[in-house]
């Protein structure tokens, strides 16, 4: 077990202070001139790397043995669907899996479980998979965690994929951790960037601390490597004209399809205009002075065929419903265009929209952090710019432009 060794004789008062400051978890303290590290320590090793040199040492003893990585090949994507209707995150992940697989020349697999899903499985062949493994059983008609986990386990044992990408839908977030625990392997949630190394180690980058920090995570000794990725983080590839790849129907022992879950009732959620699917979004924030001023924003959105969205404070004062909120505690959006109006651009908001293709920000404060992520910053009064712009668009339309 690795541990941190403290050379007490080298400690000076100044070094002590530096070490206490450098520890992000407040795990370092002093008592009677002696330094101690308590159990708040997360072994981030910042005290070794960034503290005064030679005082704290990282001692690595025995490490867990690594699996034989050559036995695990390929990148698998869990095909998230409901009654054969495939969730778009599946295509996005297949596109990313293809990129990653080409780095080390391995195949891309998709796993699909359900009932009567042969036609749906064929749809995946237009997005760049090599093989689609299908478990088509009436018992799998509804999502039941225990038997879906069994099916997934069966697939992993038989196919041995090196990496597995799962969409961070509510369903995916339930399934992935159960499997990671069953295989005693690593799981990195909500990755925003993935890279592949030649030795098939998947480099997983995810935001931590509310998006204020990015962490780069690897699973160096275990296989398979699990990660989840939210919808709209990656781009779906353009479907090919002709299908490519094979569909393989899998058999599983019927005993493993016995569930303890009873589904009593399923109710569809009301379909509302969903901002996470929108191509164009106009988002407003606290720069707007009153609710009545929304009409001017709605007019602009209407002219652009855009969905209206907002920041968290506007949800809190009930100008909008929670489904229209962009940000870490709301939706992640990735439109072709987003115009932010009167939004200062907190990190929480930015985390939910910085993947947008084109970001135009209108704000009167030149120091607003939204301008750090905007492709086009417009520093001015929204109450003058927006009406002039809508008028301009109207006139343009009238002139046949």
């Amino acid at each position: 077990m690795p541990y941190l060794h403290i050379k007490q004789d080298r400690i000076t008062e100044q070094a002590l202070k530096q070490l206490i400051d450098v520890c992000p978890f407040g795990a370092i303290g002093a008592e009677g001139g002696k330094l101690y590290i308590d159990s708040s320590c997360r072994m981030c090793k910042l005290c070794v790397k960034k503290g005064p040199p030679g005082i704290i040492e990282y001692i690595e003893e025995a490490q867990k043995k690594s699996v034989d990585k050559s036995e695990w090949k390929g990148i698998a994507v869990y095909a998230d669907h409901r009654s054969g209707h495939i969730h778009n995150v599946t295509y996005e992940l297949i596109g990313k899996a293809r990129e990653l697989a080409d780095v080390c020349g391995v195949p891309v697999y998709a796993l699909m479980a359900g009932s009567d899903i042969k036609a749906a499985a064929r749809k995946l062949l237009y997005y760049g998979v090599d093989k689609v493994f299908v478990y088509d059983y009436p018992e799998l008609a509804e999502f039941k965690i225990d038997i879906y986990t069994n099916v997934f386990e069966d697939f992993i044992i038989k196919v041995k994929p090196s990496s597995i990408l799962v969409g961070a839908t509510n369903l995916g977030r339930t399934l992935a951790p159960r499997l990671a625990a069953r295989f005693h392997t690593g799981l990195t949630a909500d990755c925003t960037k993935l890279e592949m190394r030649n030795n098939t180690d998947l480099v997983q980058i995810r935001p931590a601390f509310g998006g204020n920090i990015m962490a780069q995570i690897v699973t160096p000794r275990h296989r398979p490597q699990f990660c989840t990725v939210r919808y709209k983080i990656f781009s779906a590839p353009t479907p090919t004209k002709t299908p490519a790849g094979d569909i393989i129907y899998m058999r599983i022992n019927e005993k493993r399809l016995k569930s303890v879950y009873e589904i009593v009732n399923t109710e569809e959620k009301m379909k509302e205009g969903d901002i996470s699917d929108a191509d164009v979004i106009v988002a407003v924030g606290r720069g707007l002075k009153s609710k009545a001023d929304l009409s001017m924003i709605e007019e602009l959105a209407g002219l652009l065929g855009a969905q209206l969205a907002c920041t968290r404070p506007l949800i809190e004062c009930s100008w909008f419903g929670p489904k229209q909120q962009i940000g870490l505690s709301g939706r992640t959006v990735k439109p072709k265009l987003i115009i932010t109006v009167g939004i200062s651009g907190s990190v929480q908001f930015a985390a939910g929209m910085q993947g947008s293709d084109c970001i135009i920000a209108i704000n009167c404060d030149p120091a607003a952090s939204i301008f750090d992520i905007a492709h086009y910053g417009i520093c001015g009064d929204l109450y003058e710019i927006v009406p002039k712009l809508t008028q301009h668009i109207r006139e343009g339309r009238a002139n046949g432009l």
Partner: protein
Amino acid sequence: MKILVCIKQVPGTSDVQVNPVTGVLIRDSVESKLNPYDLYALEMAFELTAKYGGGVDVITMGPPQAKQAACEALWMGAESGVVVSDKRFAGADVLATGYTLSQGIVKMGKYDMIICGKQTTDGDTAQVGAEVAEFMKLPHAGNVLAATDISDGKVTFIVNLDDSVVTERLPLPCLLCVDGDINTPRLPSYKRKKELGDGMISTIMLDDFSDKDEMNYGLTGSPTNVERIFPPERHEEKKMLSGSSKELSDKLYELLREHKFI
């Protein structure tokens, strides 16, 4: 009904930044609080025991200071709490945390139901609950909005899936991870605080577990390694437009035309 709620102490704020030169975390405050998502889990447990009888215990894993989080739960209405704390647990990732908690829960005794919050505000992974369930070989459900009935050794509950709301039934014991904002959590009672103090909180260590192999805990027991942390990227190509409001709206109009949005 014996219910166990898993809770965690988290930093009082997630407003931390990385010094881009040194790569060191800058934290304004080291104050801690009980993870807000756990409050909904606690409230649901209290409401269920009020209706069906029984009591609520809590478990938390963390440094010795995490006792404070357990105390808060105690003052809200829990009967007792356990802090799982050991230097050898340091550096645990999702898997090692899930495993450590499951070992701690087995040590505490038998429960009809385990309830977890949706996620923590510092780790944000929303995965530990499901891993605990897997290690304990219990069925579980995520995104639970309510538990509507307990009868004949089974619990009926409502799950928020992505495009549907599903009512399901599971045999006890089982583990439920609840969504946020599903109820109004009660406040800690001053009377309970005065009466109980921290009397009902105990601490257990690795040596108390049935699996005492150090290799399964902390950093060594964690399959994932954090290689580095760094500040989020700032977008490189950016253009600030300036001028009068008229000029700005004209430029914006041209921009939108150029990109074929008009």
